């Protein structure tokens, strides 16, 4: 028996002796409170709706070709000019990945959806009424959104609407059960994580065709870490594990949206604290994640971020601040020049760093508990990092200087930025 074993045994024995001297006599007091307390509906827990990234993708534009017959050249030129004028008068759309201009901020809570200014000001309701609507996600082109509408216990239908709440419609006939991860592709498709017969599956929803197709990933349970791979967004990458195996036997996988090419990208690791907090670089080259693993610190273990290079299959451990006790949950900026991550040292704090480590990292914003569930990430223009906690005024940090601006109004639930053409 080691000294550690003895210490743990003594500690357990003391805790049991000390704790079990307590004889609670306040159950009746508790029940007086609960019997008069109204229960919340199942859909209202914000903890079930994880923050999603705020990046989006392109539409393909075809351009007129010049004619071969000189006789009609003038006419073609005239038509081309008219076409250019017509295109110019239409709304320009941002590329689906990369930098964009900051648009409105989506906000949601209490069954309604709101739209605030890019600085978080003046949140105004855009989808209201008796229905319970939640978890809105804006498309990468910034023109529309999907959200969930409660229809039964743990069941919600997928709804679509324009970014101003107009053109409301139901996307699919059938509801999802416990769907709590949505990720827009470059087009009309969404990756959705939901439950089917007690398994967590990923499905591809085609809004145009009004279909939902479960992807065959060999019976694994998929985690809430599913991303489309840029630049063509034809494949998704995700972590998965054997059914009901908790944190063991995890790996990162990829599969085509059409169900082909199911591929394991990393070794299967039975150490549970691996492959946490996925993100994908905007060029689609790197997948980031973090592991809790041995290191050279005094503690001997720590949380470290890794980059997996999808072109070469190699991975590299990244350290942005050697003095940190841990670094976790990295997000890439839209132009991949910067990252924001959680730096652990007792409490957590956001840290902005250049991706190549060329600049001194900036610690920004308040320290928060390791249990806190902040929503954070880069604004579409890549110049600002936003940090939001449920029901609080958001923080905005300048990526270059760390200068902080506080939003003027509390956000109920930060739902991401609208992306606009630059």
């Amino acid at each position, binding site marked *: 028996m080691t000294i550690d074993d003895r210490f743990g045994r003594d500690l357990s024995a003391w805790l049991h002796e000390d704790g079990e001297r307590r004889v609670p006599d*306040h159950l009746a007091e508790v029940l007086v409170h*609960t019997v008069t307390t109204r229960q919340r509906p*199942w859909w209202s827990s914000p903890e079930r709706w994880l923050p999603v990234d705020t990046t989006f993708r392109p539409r393909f534009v075809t351009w007129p070709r010049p004619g071969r017959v000189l006789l009609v050249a003038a006419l073609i030129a005239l038509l081309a000019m008219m076409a250019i004028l017509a295109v110019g008068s239409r709304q320009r759309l941002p590329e689906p990945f990369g930098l964009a201009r900051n648009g409105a901020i989506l906000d949601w809570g209490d069954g309604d959806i709101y739209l605030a200014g890019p600085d978080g000001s003046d949140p105004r309701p855009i989808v209201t009424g008796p229905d319970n609507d939640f978890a809105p996600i804006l498309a990468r082109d910034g023109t529309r959104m999907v959200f969930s509408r409660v229809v039964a216990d743990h069941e919600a239908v997928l709804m679509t609407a324009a970014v101003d709440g107009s053109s409301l419609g139901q996307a699919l006939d059938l509801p999802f059960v416990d769907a709590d991860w949505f990720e827009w592709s470059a087009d009309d498709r969404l990756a959705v994580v939901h439950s089917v017969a007690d398994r967590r599956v990923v499905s591809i929803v085609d809004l145009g065709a009004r279909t939902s197709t479960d992807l065959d990933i060999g019976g694994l349970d998929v985690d809430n870490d599913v991303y489309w791979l840029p630049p063509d967004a034809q494949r998704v990458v995700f972590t998965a594990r054997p059914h009901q195996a908790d944190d063991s036997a995890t790996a990162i996988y990829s599969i085509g949206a059409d169900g082909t090419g199911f591929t394991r990208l990393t070794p299967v690791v039975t150490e549970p*604290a691996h492959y946490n907090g996925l993100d994908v670089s905007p060029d689609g080259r790197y997948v980031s994640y973090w592991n809790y693993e041995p290191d050279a610190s005094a503690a001997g273990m720590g949380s470290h971020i890794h980059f997996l290079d999808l072109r070469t299959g190699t991975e590299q451990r990244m350290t942005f601040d050697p003095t940190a*006790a841990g670094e976790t949950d990295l997000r890439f900026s839209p132009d991949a020049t910067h990252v924001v991550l959680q730096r652990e040292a007792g409490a957590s704090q956001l840290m902005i760093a250049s991706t190549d480590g060329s600049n001194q990292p900036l610690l920004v914003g308040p320290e928060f508990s390791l*249990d806190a569930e902040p929503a954070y990430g880069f604004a579409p223009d890549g110049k600002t990092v936003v940090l939001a906690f449920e029901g609080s005024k958001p923080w905005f940090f300048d990526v270059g200087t760390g200068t902080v601006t506080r939003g003027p109004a509390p956000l109920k639930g930060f739902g991401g930025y609208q992306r606009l053409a630059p």
Partner: protein
Amino acid sequence: MQRDLVERARDGDHDAFAELAGAAISRLDSAAWLILRDPEQAKDAVQNALVRAWRDLPTLRDPDRFDAWLHRLVVRACIDEARRLRRHRIDVELTEIHAPAVAGVESTVVDRDQLERGFLRLEPEQRAVIVLHHYLDLPMPAVATTLGIPLGTAKSRLHYALGRMRAALDADAQIGPDLVEGRPS
């Protein structure tokens, strides 16, 4: 049996919830006491957690995770209570440490007084990990699930907590046994 009770309580059956609460309150109260070391604070934390449990029960997706979910609510309520205490009480009074509760402790490697003194020096968040692992006997993945944090973070927190406790015990041993302990008033 418990799954049935949880499902009924989730559907609004208050009697079922009363049965669940009655079965759990002793365990929860002990855990809260260990984390907060203040009987009134512990009572408040447990009451807050149980009221919240009733209120939020319909949001619990998997009835089989009820115990872990309830532990999480209590631990979070304890941490909230501790933070409220830190904000509003800054005076410190010196109180003598209690005598050992059980005879015959001298056979153990570390005596109960030392353990209590070391434990008191930890932050409530650190005590919570220790209580979940060493009192409620949860394996580390379950501790992480209960706290809603990654396993790595839970392991890290336990490691630091135990290290800090050992350091406090070492410091104690160098100063000697006749200590008084600072406690929030």
